[in-house]
């Protein structure tokens, strides 16, 4: 289905607000949509849907296991539940309900997990979530999306309703700057977007790191004449393997950036594809180095964990100084 986006002013609306509005708009046409949350209607903005369709909105209180169980039941009854809570509760507190009641039964639940990564900066590790990509990626049947900004969140929400089975959409707290200035850039679940082409190195990013990757590439070009390809890997699963293999072929050097533990998330997914592809390629994974997160302003934390534009520039420069083993048969085999 298509929606009109220009009514939304992304300068003034957070990704969560945009998705709340988009979901509400979709709810008018799609009567099968129901929305659920666990005392986070305001924080996740899913309450917007509830304001418009109170009879199709369920706030189950602070009980996330029940939240996802009820969501499963509503899906089994023929509805398409959109379930929103903080990423840490969706992927950890209710992990088994998400796995067993939703993924195992392959029901049509769409999970919008907010405050992911370290986006809830000052709240600290109990409210950060740097494990969800790893967890959700390992659940069979689950599609995992980490949109770059509000427009992309809206696109993902619109696309996921007719995308079969469970979908996990991971967004931040909502104060992230936007990458896109309109939604018409050909968003498709499972299809990576090349933000800028380049043959020297590839930066693959997701979520808030996409903007930083784009900025880093510009800096690299301006200051050093380096042509860095930037890929917005908004879908972590199914991963766009072709885009990764093409980057390996064209640039032989890849830096990944994500607001997540470097174990199990985007970097790991990319590493798996590179390794199974069998071609030599340098890889540096930027993200939290298998540590619990610190407290601080989200922007400071992105920089502290080396996932902001400056850190990406640094990682790229370092990698360009490193050799990549040549593969004689490369051209024949691609």
């Amino acid at each position, binding site marked *: 289905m298509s929606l009109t986006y220009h009514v939304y002013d992304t300068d003034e609306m957070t990704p969560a607000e945009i998705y709340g509005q988009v979901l509400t708009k979709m709810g008018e046409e799609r009567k099968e949509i*129901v929305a659920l949350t666990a005392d986070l209607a305001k924080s996740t903005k899913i309450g917007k849907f509830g304001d418009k369709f109170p*009879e*199709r909105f*369920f706030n*189950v*209180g602070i*009980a996330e*296991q*029940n939240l*996802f*169980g*009820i*969501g*499963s*039941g*509503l*899906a*089994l*009854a*023929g*509805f398409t539940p959109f379930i929103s809570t903080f990423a840490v509760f969706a992927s950890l507190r209710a992990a*088994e*309900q998400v796995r*067993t*009641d939703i993924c*195992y*039964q*392959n029901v049509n639940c769409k999970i919008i997990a907010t405050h992911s990564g370290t986006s809830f900066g000052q709240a600290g590790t109990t409210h950060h979530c740097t494990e969800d990509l790893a967890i959700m990626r390992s659940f069979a049947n689950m599609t995992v999306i980490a949109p770059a900004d509000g427009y992309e969140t809206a696109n993902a929400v619109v696309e996921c309703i007719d995308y079969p089975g469970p979908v996990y959409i991971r967004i931040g707290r909502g104060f992230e700057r936007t990458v896109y200035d309109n939604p018409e850039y050909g968003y498709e679940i499972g299809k990576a977007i090349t933000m800028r082409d380049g043959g020297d190195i590839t930066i693959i990013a997701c979520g808030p790191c996409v903007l930083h990757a784009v900025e880093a590439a510009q800096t690299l070009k301006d200051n050093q004449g380096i042509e860095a390809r930037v890929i917005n890997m908004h879908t972590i699963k199914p991963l766009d393997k072709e885009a990764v293999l093409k980057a390996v072929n064209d640039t032989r050097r890849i830096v990944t950036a994500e607001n997540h533990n470097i174990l199990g998330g985007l970097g790991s997914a990319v590493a798996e594809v590179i390794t199974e592809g069998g071609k030599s390629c340098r890889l540096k994974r930027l993200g939290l180095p298998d540590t619990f997160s610190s407290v601080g302003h989200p922007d400071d934390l992105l920089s502290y964990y080396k996932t902001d534009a400056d850190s990406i520039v640094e990682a790229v420069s370092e990698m360009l100084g490193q050799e990549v083993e040549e593969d004689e048969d490369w051209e024949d085999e691609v």
Partner: protein
Amino acid sequence: MALSEEILSALNEKAWKNRRMAIKTMVWAGGGHAGGALSQVEILVLLYYHYMNVDPQNPDWEDRDRLVLSKGHGGVGYAPILADKGYFDEEQLKIFNHTHSPFGMHLDRLKVPGVDASTGSLGHGLSIAVGLALGARLKKKDWRTYCIMGDGECNEGSIWEAAMAASHYKLSNLTAFVDRNRMCIDGEVEKIMALEPFIDKWKSFGWNTLEVDGHDFNQLDDAIQNAFQNTDKPTVIIANTIKGKGVDYMENVAPWHYGGLDAENEEKALNSIDRAYGKA
């Protein structure tokens, strides 16, 4: 009102058959959750042969009543009922638990026709049932949702999250049963983690509560009738049962939560069941 002699006799016949088939399926399966499969029999039989509006030829029929066997380990006793209802050929029970069989100890709704929710991990079913009951109300459908829990399962906190939600939403179209056989894997529920005062807990969570002999069809039937009369609360029926009911050497013996049966034990079990129904 008491069930007629004719109905009672038909239900007893089904219960007898279900107990025998549960034992036989456990043998084909190489073992099974004997205790819980035998304690739940009257609840399942009454629901499937007297109450539930289902169409085995059309398992996904939208208007059907739903059942969530939250105590998913009862699968080895539940599957024979689904077979007897005609969802699939009884012969298929012979591959229960076999490699790549559609039937494992805990039934999978995507593989076994007639199963409304895949269960097995305890504490999940009541939330799913709440979602189904809410769904019926939203769709303005009058199908009912039934949920059967184990009593040990009620040690799970998620059961009480769901219990809170069911009464909050006034889900009178949801009828829950607790198969109160008083045993879990490691022994007696009350010794391991006490539930008493159990019925008071449900009452204080806002449920219409009833306590019956879970092997007495008339008492169970009265309780279900009572549930149907209630228009603003979900109903829980605490069904006092005996784990392993019908097989003398299994009754109230904790290790028979799960066990394997050799030929001798199988014969002893079937004979015991036959004697209990005056068939020996």
